[in-house]
């Protein structure tokens, strides 16, 4: 039965997705007076209601707050099938998107990450440089609130962070000393976590509790619901939660002119000058592929069949060291301790291009430790309690996160056997590790093992490829200037005027570190381009 539209309205810009990039763009445009409507399929998650205040907080972390939608089973999630991928998807839907569930580790890309084809003959160059993003990185830092320390020799110089880094645990100090003895780089991690309270924004100071992924009652750990969103709403952005997008509507010339969406059973069409896709590197190509029409019979921007291709994650190994002596209890931001970028830049002697970061992880709680934590599940039976006491608070772990090169076979397609309530097919992830990633992982695992043994670990356990590490969906609607690009360098979808992508889909290459600061900076850059070239003459909202 044909859908019945019950309501029609208009905005200058409709943004799909209220997460890391969508919130940033909404704020930037609204600051300039643009009339913005944001559609978010999830809802609000009040920081004060975070489960870290509950006795069963560890169970919540394993279930309803799990990053894997198949475990979390939330009704608002983007439906996804990943049977053809060794890496499970990990994301969150709601006002704040996946920043609601993250560890707020906040590194920047290196200049070389933007020019992998030029420098190393692999991947795809970005049509912009690190220098183009630098001012937007800085702007984003001021909104998100960053703790860290300037002076890292592995990264270009940048401004002093307003707040200092987080302390290391006993185990992390041992690891840092081991890196020193090995002659390897390490540095305290940047975190989008406030060490100091800010009365102006209502954000409190971190109290070192640990499970940042549950949300932060102190509002110290950044998520865009407490950073960008208060500012955006104050500037008049309209936000609709529980809003499932049905289709991007295009006219006979192929131009995006409206968005069809629904909340519950009520259907809406919002007309606009510009549609901005900020639904992440899985959700954005899903909507582009699903929005077929006579002008775009294969999906929007998909005339060359490229939408959804070149999916990049950050393949991750976890190497856990078990120490005879205590290494510290699970306190402090779990993802923000230290990192080593000793092996980040290309060294062809490794037999691979590009590189990886090693990141220290603080210990997990009692339940997570018993269930395996970053190592193996504790044995059941007679030795269970002994194993717990030998393991809990006696471990130090390193992730090895490698750059993922873009390959056309790794992709997001549609799974028509499974739809959401709006009738939009599920995303299907098809992914396999390439040889370059395998070589980097092998090298990194060996180096992480070396570091942990140097630090005094009595045993080392290796997870060669973390299954639950599909946090980053990148490259599925990449920007560029060549024939394979889906958008131009400022996110305008080729062949579809009026449609702009701003999220991680745009990444031509993935770097070897967490992408959120980069995708937010890039989104702010594109927002400024929109203001300069498309919305400069708009009437400022009353």
């Amino acid at each position, binding site marked *: 039965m044909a859908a019945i539209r019950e309501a029609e309205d208009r905005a200058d810009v409709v943004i799909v997705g209220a997460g890391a990039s969508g919130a940033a763009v909404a704020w930037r445009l609204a600051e300039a007076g643009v009339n913005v409507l944001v559609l978010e399929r999830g809802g609000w998650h009040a920081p004060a209601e975070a489960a870290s205040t509950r006795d069963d907080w560890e169970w919540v972390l394993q279930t309803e707050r799990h990053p894997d939608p198949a475990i979390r089973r939330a009704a608002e999630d983007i439906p996804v099938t990943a049977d053809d991928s060794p890496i499970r998807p990990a994301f969150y839907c709601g006002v704040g998107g996946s920043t609601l569930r993250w560890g707020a580790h906040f590194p920047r890309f290196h200049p070389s990450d933007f*020019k992998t084809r030029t420098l190393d003959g692999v991947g795809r160059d970005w049509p912009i440089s690190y220098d183009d993003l630098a001012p937007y990185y800085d702007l984003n830092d001021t909104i998100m609130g960053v703790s860290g320390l300037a002076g890292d020799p592995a990264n270009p110089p940048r401004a002093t962070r307003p707040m200092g*880094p987080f302390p290391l645990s006993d185990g992390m100090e041992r690891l840092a000393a081991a890196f020193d003895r090995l002659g390897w780089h390490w540095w305290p991690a940047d975190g989008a976590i406030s060490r100091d309270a800010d009365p102006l924004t209502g954000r409190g100071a971190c109290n070192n509790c640990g499970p940042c992924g549950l949300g932060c009652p102190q509002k110290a750990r950044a998520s865009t619901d407490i950073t960008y969103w208060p500012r955006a709403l104050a500037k008049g952005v309209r936000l609709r939660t529980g809003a499932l997008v049905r289709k991007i509507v295009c006219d006979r010339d192929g131009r995006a002119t409206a968005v069809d969406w629904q909340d519950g059973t009520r259907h809406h069409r919002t007309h606009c000058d510009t549609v901005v896709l900020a639904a992440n590197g899985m959700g954005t190509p899903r909507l582009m592929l699903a929005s077929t029409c006579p002008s775009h019979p294969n999906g929007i921007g998909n005339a060359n069949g490229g939408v959804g291709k070149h999916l990049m994650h950050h393949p991750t190994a976890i190497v856990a060291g078990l120490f005879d002596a205590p290494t510290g209890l699970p306190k402090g931001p779990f993802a923000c301790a230290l990192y080593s970028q000793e092996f980040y830049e290309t060294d062809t002697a490794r037999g691979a291009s590009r590189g990886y970061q090693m990141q220290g992880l603080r210990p997990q709680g009692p339940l997570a430790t018993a269930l395996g934590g970053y190592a193996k599940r504790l044995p059941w039976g007679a030795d269970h309690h002994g194993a717990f006491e030998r393991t809990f608070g006696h471990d130090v772990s390193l992730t090895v996160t490698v750059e993922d090169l873009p390959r056309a076979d790794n992709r997001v397609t549609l799974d028509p056997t499974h739809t959401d309530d709006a009738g939009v097919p599920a995303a299907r992830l098809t992914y396999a590790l390439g040889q370059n990633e395998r070589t980097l992982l092998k090298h990194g695992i060996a180096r992480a093992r070396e570091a942990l043994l140097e630090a005094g670990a009595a045993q080392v356990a290796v997870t060669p490829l973390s299954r639950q590490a599909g946090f980053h969906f990148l490259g599925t609607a990449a920007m560029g200037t060549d024939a394979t690009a889906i958008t131009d360098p400022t996110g305008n979808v080729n062949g579809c005027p009026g449609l702009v992508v701003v999220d991680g889909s745009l990444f031509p290459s993935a770097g070897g570190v967490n992408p959120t600061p980069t995708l937010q900076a890039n989104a702010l850059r594109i927002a400024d381009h929109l203001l300069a070239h498309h919305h400069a003459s708009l009437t400022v909202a009353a």
Partner: protein
Amino acid sequence: MSDRLAIVLDRLIPGDPERGWPTPSAIDLAAKARALADGRGEPTLLDAIAARLPDGFEAMPEADQVAALSHLEAGDGEAFGRLIHYAYGAYYIDPAVRRTVEVRTGYPARPPQPQGYTLPPFDEALLETVKTRPPFWRPVPKR
């Protein structure tokens, strides 16, 4: 009638009175594990897995019960993993067990929030060695 799941849990997590670890049966873990499974929409899962153990399991000597569980684990690791998930889940969020964790390790039994923990400053002296290193990030030639 004996509760097979309760016996199963006592074999999985035997408890250690000397060190303060309660046995599952002492804290009615079977009911708590069933409640967790029910909350996840799997109200019959745990008893269904336990039902796959041999007839007469309840009356077996403990060593034979352990052997039966090992056989189940070897034959269907996925189902056994789900059993362990709920068993450990219910055990390690139990207040009595969390008190033991605190006594044995020092990790407070209370939730992490709202109290949190002391946040000391970062010790910048730790960076003495790495600060002597010159920049080594790879520059990109300007065009």
